[in-house]
């Protein structure tokens, strides 16, 4: 299958880009892992639940507009495509995707241009008890509510830091859950420094404050969760106040009984596909120019992948990217004046995002307070003590710690533990390079290699790996379950070293330089050593929300994702002419 543009990720950025390009005559395929477009921001109950409108949805009007526009467009929407790699060669770009939900079969999509709109994921810093069932990420709790109409418990504490906590707390409260507290570590005294940048957000913040008040949600600022309690599942959390130096003030600890904790400390961009392509990063985000182009020809990026900034910013960036791609694929230079309104939204959005980021820095010294027996790497069950021991043994960076302890080598490939590793080791967090963006069955890799060998075409002309028969079992997976596949199994284009794009370190850019990122060490699949355990009794069942019993739709207060100023109002409106606006740097 060949198309002009493959957009990876059907959230706000991807949809905006797909629409903008399709309107200009470009053939667009919009691929996403989910069962339909929308991304996390516009996540809504599955059609089968027949519950549209049952739970407050983010940016409902914007979503309706985008959904209708997509339906009327020529955009080829391809759900349940789990993209695991994008390759570039002289003939263009190849997107490799596993077809869901089984993810045993891989397909290829050839395109002249690719837009990476891969979004972001939440970070959570470790604390005692954070692996207990009942502890979920703030965004995870929200996703389960928005998509499945279920909540993690009847009494929830929402904690951490960041703008996401507000919609999570109010969303759960309006779904009938008792929110025992909203625990935000940021010092409100920091706010005045950001007032100017955040002035436009004040009405939205006031709306959340009103809703928290209405639902009688206690708000504890300058507080943090120091421990989650429970044996086999969560029964409560201890919260405590922080002092001026971000340390727990002795004597302020108190227990809040709850059966769920929704916790988050910010977000990180998904950059795996960009890094495999060799795109330059700016910190944790994909670096782009004023047209949203990466430094790799044919590859654009927009939305959270280029920096966490919320849905309005993502829509604007996506729109600009779509117009740029349409022009560039025709061999012409785009006229930035044509997207000036979107550029204005983008500039404002980036200012707001920077201010929110400065406001919601997680508490300093977090790692010092993590006890030795607290698990840092959830997949490999590596404790803070083991990590500290590795540092004592001489590990000077998180990658060496990984080699010594296995922390970060598990299923999630270090996505969840990287912030905790950085906090405990004191080493700065650096993006980890992952050859594949998700687990890939070895059979898929082998079939792709075989197909290419047979065709005699080492680059891009082989038959679809999807033609191969899926293995009996999913077998060991390259990456998480069995990284030996990464090092020992050739990829679809032969040995990984051969097809890896050049990554010249650029001056001033923090470029990962870890040799282990090129080739992951073999990982033993350890046999289960412990006897099977009975499931613990579920004393506190999570509360189900029967669709028919959901409270009426809240007044149309804009639910906001992180740093999202009113998508419906700030969405790009290219018909209104504005003078070009100078762009702030990303």
């Amino acid at each position, binding site marked *: 299958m060949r198309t002009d543009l493959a957009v990876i990720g059907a959230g706000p950025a991807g949809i905006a880009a797909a629409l903008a390009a399709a309107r200009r005559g470009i053939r667009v395929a919009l691929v996403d892992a989910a069962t339909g477009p929308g991304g996390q921001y516009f996540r809504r109950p599955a059609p089968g639940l027949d519950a549209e409108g049952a739970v407050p949805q983010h940016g409902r009007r914007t979503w309706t507009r985008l959904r209708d526009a997509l339906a009327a467009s020529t955009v080829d929407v391809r759900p349940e495509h789990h993209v695991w790699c994008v390759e570039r060669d002289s003939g263009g770009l190849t997107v490799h995707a596993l077809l869901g939900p089984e993810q045993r079969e891989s397909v290829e999509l050839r395109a002249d241009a690719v837009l990476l709109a891969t979004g972001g994921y939440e970070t959570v810093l470790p604390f005692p008890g954070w692996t207990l*069932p009942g502890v979920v990420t703030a965004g995870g709790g929200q996703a389960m509510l928005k998509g*499945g109409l279920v909540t993690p418990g009847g009494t929830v504490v929402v904690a951490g830091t960041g703008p996401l906590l507000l919609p999570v707390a109010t969303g759960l409260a309006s779904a009938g859950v008792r929110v025992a507290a909203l625990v935000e570590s940021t010092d409100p005294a920091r706010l005045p420094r950001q007032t100017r940048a955040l002035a436009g957000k004040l009405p939205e913040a006031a709306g959340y404050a009103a809703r928290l008040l209405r639902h009688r949600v206690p708000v504890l600022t300058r507080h943090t969760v120091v421990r989650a309690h429970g044996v086999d599942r969560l029964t409560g959390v201890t919260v405590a106040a922080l002092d001026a130096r971000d340390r727990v003030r002795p004597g302020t600890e108190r227990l809040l009984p709850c059966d769920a904790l929704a916790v988050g400390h910010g977000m990180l961009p998904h950059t795996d596909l960009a890094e495999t392509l060799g795109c330059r990063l700016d910190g944790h985000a994909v670096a782009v120019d004023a047209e949203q182009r990466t430094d790799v020809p044919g590859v654009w990026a927009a939305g959270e992948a280029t920096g966490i900034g919320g849905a309005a910013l993502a829509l604007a960036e996506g729109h600009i990217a779509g117009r740029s791609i349409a022009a560039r694929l025709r061999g012409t230079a785009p006229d930035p004046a044509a997207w000036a309104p979107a550029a204005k939204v983008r500039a404002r959005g980036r200012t707001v995002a920077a201010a929110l980021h400065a406001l919601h820095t997680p508490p300093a010294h977090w790692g010092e307070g993590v006890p030795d027996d607290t698990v840092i790497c959830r997949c490999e069950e590596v404790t803070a003590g083991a990590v500290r021991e590795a540092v004592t043994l001489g590990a000077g960076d998180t990658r060496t710690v990984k080699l010594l302890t296995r922390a970060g080598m598990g299923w999630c490939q270090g996505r969840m533990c990287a912030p905790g590793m950085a906090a405990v080791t004191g080493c700065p967090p650096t993006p980890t390079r992952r050859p594949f963006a998700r687990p890939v069955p070895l059979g898929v890799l082998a079939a792709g290699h075989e197909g290419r060998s047979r065709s005699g075409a080492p680059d891009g002309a082989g038959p679809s790996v999807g033609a191969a028969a899926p293995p009996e079992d999913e077998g060991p997976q390259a990456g998480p379950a069995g990284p030996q596949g990464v090092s020992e199994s050739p990829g679809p284009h032969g040995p990984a070293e051969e097809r890896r794009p050049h990554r010249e370190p650029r001056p001033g850019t923090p470029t990962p330089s870890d040799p282990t990122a090129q080739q992951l060490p073999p990982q033993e699949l350890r046999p289960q050593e412990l006897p099977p355990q009975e499931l613990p009794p579920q004393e506190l069942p999570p509360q189900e929300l029967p669709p028919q019993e959901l409270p009426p739709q809240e007044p149309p207060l804009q639910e906001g994702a992180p740093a999202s100023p009113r998508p419906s109002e700030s969405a790009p409106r290219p018909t209104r002419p504005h003078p070009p606006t100078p762009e702030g740097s990303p």
Partner: protein
Amino acid sequence: MKTPEGDGTGRAFEVTFDGRSVEALPGRTVAAVLWAAGVTSWRTTRDGGRPRGVFCGIGVCFDCLVTVNGRPNQRACLVPVRPGDVIRTQEGTGHED
């Protein structure tokens, strides 16, 4: 535009979790069905045998791995439930039984 349609029936159906019958609504993920049934953990870890369930809820963390129809290591937060699914707690790697 091509989008998938849900089965649209809106009718509840049965699946099993560790042998007991659980009601499921179409369009829900395995994780959502289990939460609705009062279950919050469906995996024990390889080393410590500790219970785990949903953490990130969007397919990133792999904490919610579960065995569905004999196939281990399925992310419960992503896999849509289907009538008759046999869902089992995954012990360790899930390949041991």
